């Protein structure tokens, strides 16, 4: 589609200067398969040379009907679907979802379970921020950062695999607890991972934070003011980089976050560099939280012992009819949740990750709606890149950490 824009030729004689020079805007599709488009998203750009005159963001390439599938699955069957929402921080999704179901059931999980959930949430947050910065830097040609951070991410992925057997498809939490306890030697391995990751973050910060190219490409690029960010519905690191201090872990506390000593990181500039800085410092805070949590973790059960909610021990299941019936009904019918509706929000890596569940008394949710932080972030993408340059889209988009699985469900 062509649009005619009036313009003047700068270097002509008087007689020709009054004639308008038609300029056509170029419409370019950026995506859905694009090396810098993480996940799949398509931005329809109208360019005037290098300037972005208009941008239209098209999503939906990864819609997998999570909400509809939840209606026909039991509460436990929905859990694997939650892994695949924000697939770089799957454990946070798991935790958020079961917290909401437990709110409807009006039960509280034992302290050990709460600590473990915080530990895995923070581990997931670190993997998410590592991936985000790694990808953003790689697209700005700092390939080394990508390799270093992916290697650091591996330290945590190995731990996650130790805990639940998978790196992405974790499905670790259960309604009323966890699928199983932490493995032996976990504390030792976690502390090593923390120490190693600290070193890597220092190294990368040294590489890139004061690097001329990186700084010039990110400072003052994609500025979003606090009012704009709030009006888009932003939460998480992007909002905090614009100066608004809101973190679900501090402001609507859950699990054992109030017991840990940590800070909410903010910046005021609201540009891509600020978002980068916030993520780096948030990782440091998460590492600090992990150290405290793994030292304070109490002994005890890792799930509630209510037979209406938790599966019985296998020794009971295989050797007694009562255990078998209990297991059978819980698996086939699902955990019966009394009718009601609840919303529970956790701090996801991208912001406030909420689950709104309507229960109807049966073992399947009537409705399960995730409030995805990425969806609000995507809202702000088009206004932010409009008026900028084509090459600015890359760092801005990278700093927003668009995760298709979460935005489109």
């Amino acid at each position, binding site marked *: 589609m062509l649009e005619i824009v009036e313009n003047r030729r700068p270097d002509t004689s008087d007689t020709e200067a009054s004639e308008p020079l038609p300029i056509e805007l170029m419409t370019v599709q950026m995506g859905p398969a694009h090396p810098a488009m993480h996940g799949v998203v398509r931005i329809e750009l109208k360019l005037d040379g290098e300037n972005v005159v208009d941008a239209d963001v098209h999503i939906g390439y990864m819609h997998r009907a999570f909400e509809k599938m939840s209606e026909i699955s039991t509460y436990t069957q929905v859990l694997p679907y939650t892994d695949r929402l924000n697939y770089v921080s799957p454990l946070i999704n798991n935790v958020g979802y079961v917290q909401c179901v437990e709110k409807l059931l009006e039960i509280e999980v034992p302290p050990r379970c709460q600590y473990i959930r915080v530990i895995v949430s923070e581990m997931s947050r670190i993997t998410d921020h590592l991936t985000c910065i790694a990808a953003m830097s790689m697209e700005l040609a700092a390939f080394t950062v990508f390799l270093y951070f992916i290697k650091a991410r591996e330290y945590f992925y190995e731990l996650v695999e130790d805990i639940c057997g998978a790196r992405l498809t974790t499905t670790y939490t259960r309604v009323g607890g966890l699928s199983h306890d932490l493995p032996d030697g976990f504390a030792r391995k976690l502390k090593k991972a923390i120490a190693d990751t600290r070193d890597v973050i220092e190294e990368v910060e040294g590489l890139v934070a004061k690097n001329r190219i990186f700084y010039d490409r990110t400072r003052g690029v994609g500025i979003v003011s606090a009012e704009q960010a709030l009006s888009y519905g932003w939460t998480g690191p992007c909002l905090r980089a614009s100066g608004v201090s809101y973190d679900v872990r501090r402001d609507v506390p859950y699990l054992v976050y109030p017991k840990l000593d940590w800070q909410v990181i903010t910046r005021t500039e609201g540009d891509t560099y600020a978002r980068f800085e916030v993520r780096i410092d948030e990782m440091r805070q998460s590492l600090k939280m992990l150290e405290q949590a793994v030292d304070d973790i109490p002994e005890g059960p890792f799930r509630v012992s209510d037979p*209406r909610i938790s599966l019985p021990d296998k020794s009971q299941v295989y050797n*007694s*009819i*009562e255990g*078998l*019936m209990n297991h059978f*009904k819980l698996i*086939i019918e699902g955990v019966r949740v009394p009718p009601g509706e609840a919303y529970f929000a956790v701090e996801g890596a991208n912001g406030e990750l909420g689950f709104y569940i309507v229960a109807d008394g*049966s073992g399947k949710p009537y409705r399960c709606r995730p409030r995805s932080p990425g969806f609000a972030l995507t809202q702000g993408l088009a206004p932010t890149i409009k008026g900028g340059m084509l090459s600015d889209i890359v760092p801005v988009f990278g700093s927003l950490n668009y995760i298709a699985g979460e935005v489109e469900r």
Partner: protein
Amino acid sequence: MAAPPVKLKINGQEITAPAGSSILETARQNNILVPHFCYHPHLPVVGNCRMCQVDVEGIPKLQIACATPIREGMAVQTENDRVKKARQGVLEFLLINHPVDCPVCDQAGECSLQDYYMKHGLYQSRFSFRKVKREKAQELGPHVLLDQERCVLCTRCVRFTSDVTKTGELAVEQRGFHAQITLFPGRTLDNPYSGNVVDVCPVGALLSKDFRFQSRVWFLKESKSICPGCSRGCNIRVDSRGQQIYRILPRENLDVNKVWLCDDGRFNFAFVGAPDRIVSPQARSEGKLTDVTWPIAMVAMADRLRAMAEAGSTVAVLGSAQSPCETSWLAKRLAVDFLRGGPTEFGRSLRGTTGSDRSDDFLEEPDKNPNTRGAAEVGLGQGSDEALEGLRQKIASGSVRGLILIDFDPITELPGQAWDEALRGLELLAVLKSNTSPACAAAHVVLPLTTFAEQDGTFVNSDGRVQRFAAAFGPVHTARPGWQALRDLGKMVGLGWSYASAEEVFGALAREVASFSAMTYKNLGDLGQPLGGGSSASESTGGETVPAAAGNGAGAAEPVRAFGWRQWSWERKRPWE
């Protein structure tokens, strides 16, 4: 003779109930479910399971609700700690020797033990010894298997065979710890209602051979329907998955079949998915019947009918007592409005869809057609042998040149009467049927119709009760409901019919046929209505003094169901719950 109603309190709730009723029955009628194994509303009370114990104020020990009559001013607690502990205890004892069979037991998903354990049990087993081993998967008869280990000795099956069928095949042998259900020596469980013991058994001890291991019950869709086997019109529930019927269970209708179903009706649904279902419409061209599409077959039929009408040839309609009212009524309308002067009649199948010819004084009736009354009421004809013979003579003599056959094949049903010859002499023979039969080979047009399981409709039973049935699944192959085929034909010959559903056809039928007046699908409800009494939907049938609280005949307010008429609820209920 009626004693005044009694006021009592259950769980603090004020309830008024007829005198003489038991606590359990009173609670049940007021949606308070007291768990029980041995109690059954249609079997004599024995009180041997002790699961229905409740706390009656003023009586020191817990009383069994099934056998305790209500008294004025009684205060009953069904959910206090004493009662809960008693239930747990009963469950614990019953489960001591219960085999760990859930993964292989058919009853899983609709098992009283499972359901009560999750609601009233929730304890850890304290039994650490070996369970008693008994016979498993014992054949009791042609339809029923017994697993003695799973039995909880509620004796419902024994009471059924002794009190309902009065055949007495089953009994409890031995005593105490060794007691078990068994056949009397030398007997087999072969009475014509043997399938009902599978329904009454609350656990997986008595199983249907036909249904064993076929499907898990939570995959099955439940549809309310009417058995097409005979003119009793027993209310049934069709359990299906995809386009296949897995089993048929009875539904409770106190005026028709109580809660029972004969074996002939229960086990004969194979004709729905049989290989002899007509797969595609057929039309004759150059002397041969070929598969065609519906539009081509309908156009061929409509053209021929119009040509014959112009030439003044008579076309008759021979319907069936197997067809639902909607089909029969549209057939009659077609004959009256387009085939002026054409005779109409309906045939009655000798053995019907069950292939059986037995009848008794309990449920099974000698008329093996579900809708004889309906076909007669809508004016299709008399259905008598003389009337059919009269029609055949008209065909043979040439005064009737065309015949539309619906759901009926005179060649098989009236053998040896030269129908074969008569049909072959017709100028137009259109056969509308679900399963192939000899008449199809002689036809000019064959149109495949749906069976009762694939369409909505109504049947009128021998008592004159109009009852609805719902489709369990969509038409198989290219079949269409009879009313739909006739509607399209009517449209093509210029009658302007635009009925969009069987419900609309029934609405039109109810406006035109006096005995159906004021009936709608909605007010027919789950239990149907008698002919002629269509105006007052709240009346149950006269005669029996049924207690006021009984939800018989759409008297009690129907709770709003989320799934509409076709499915009950999330809970899998036994037919009488």
